[in-house]
């Protein structure tokens, strides 16, 4: 009989709006997998450093729209798939992608970007084997995190600096709604 360690490695999507929650959830997930003797690793957003470099640039040059930011996220995800996710899966390791697609789609949805455009943009990314979403804390308080910490925080901070009509707290509320709706439809598990 095959042992648990010989099971097919899985791509686990872990999505949520707050990076601090994603970090904690990813750690908990890894511990759970390890208790079943499953080797795993985490692929974080911005492994390519695209957003880090954008953050280093002058503030006036950071005037990117939601669509531009999603194109950058797609470029970063293509990098993660090429250098982290696919090689790790090929070597037999389970990968937790934190975040994966749903956080980006929730951001696009909150900014009213066309769904068919987003679906086509991310068509290169394989569907995950399992999906988790974080339990969203501090809904009423909106964003308090450092703008550079996570994808949703970073892009909301950038867009708020460009678009007079953009309310980051309202955007987060809409992102959470989208994540929860998607989670119900896809039977994702919630992790605290």
């Amino acid at each position, binding site marked *: 009989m095959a042992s648990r360690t010989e099971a097919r490695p899985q791509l686990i999507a872990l999505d949520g709006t707050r990076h601090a929650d994603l970090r904690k959830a990813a750690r908990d997930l890894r511990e759970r997998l390890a208790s079943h003797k499953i080797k795993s690793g985490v692929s974080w957003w911005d492994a390519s450093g695209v957003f880090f470099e954008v953050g280093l640039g002058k503030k006036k040059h950071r005037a*990117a729209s939601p669509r531009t930011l999603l194109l950058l996220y797609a470029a970063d995800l293509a990098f993660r798939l090429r250098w982290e996710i696919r090689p790790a899966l090929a070597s037999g390791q389970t990968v937790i992608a934190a975040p994966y697609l749903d956080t980006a789609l929730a951001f696009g949805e909150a900014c009213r970007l066309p769904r068919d455009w987003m679906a086509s943009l991310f068509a290169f990314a394989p569907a995950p084997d399992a999906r988790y979403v974080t339990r969203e804390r501090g809904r009423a308080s909106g964003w308090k995190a450092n703008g550079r910490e996570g994808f949703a925080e970073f892009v909301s901070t950038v867009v708020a600096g460009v678009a007079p009509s953009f309310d980051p707290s309202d955007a987060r509320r809409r992102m959470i709604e989208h994540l929860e709706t998607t989670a119900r439809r896809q039977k994702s598990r919630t992790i605290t």
Partner: protein
Amino acid sequence: MTATPARTSQTRVARKRLDALLREREADRGLLIAFEGPDGSGKTTQRKLFTRWLESQGHRVVTTKWASSPLVKPLLKVRKQARALSPEEFCLLQAADLRYRLEQEILPALWSGATVVADRYLFTSLARDAARGLDLDWMLHAYSPLFWPDLVLNFTVSLDTSTSRVASKHTPKYYDAGQDVTNLDDPIVSYRAFETRVMREYENLSLIFRFVAVDGERPIYEQHKRIRQLFQEGRRAAWGEWNVEALAEWMEWTGIHEADHGE
């Protein structure tokens, strides 16, 4: 996927307001002229001549160059030097660059009545990335909503002319020579192999998108006169239906919608 009723109704109202704004602005808007073609086809020389001539005629001119946005240019530069770009990443970063320049440079300039001259536009990426094996349909989606130029000048030259002009200035760089996909060590040999594919893609795009051909092998002044003539004969048309989505999104995010409505 279907839009929600609220979203549809919101869109309908916004669209009516937008159509009215575009009609008001139509007579004063600037024109977007794109200079396209393979390396060494003489685009930049002609672009500079044309820009100077336009200015001498009293036009306000804004020039925009490929992959030049302050947001994406540094990202591309580092990744090109490290030879770390896959065709998908390259295409997506260029799409981000064009979107940024559209929203920050091109559309504001056109809206204010300036003529925008683009030294390479969307078609450069489409031709090169299709030559790298990417699917044209996926690329067009990544670049959408597309913003169509009023005139696309496609400079055509033979492969030999392109190679000799490029090689006389410098050795083609890794990605310009297409070494990421040809796997050839010699940059010139790789350039010829890659550029053959790029030229074929330009020909296909030219048929689909109706570029105006300029023979890049003709004398420089002859080409320049033809470009002036094409520009002068070009009929000022309304902003195309296909450009409205890009304009609407830009106006929504910059708040122009509201500002102009309130005037």
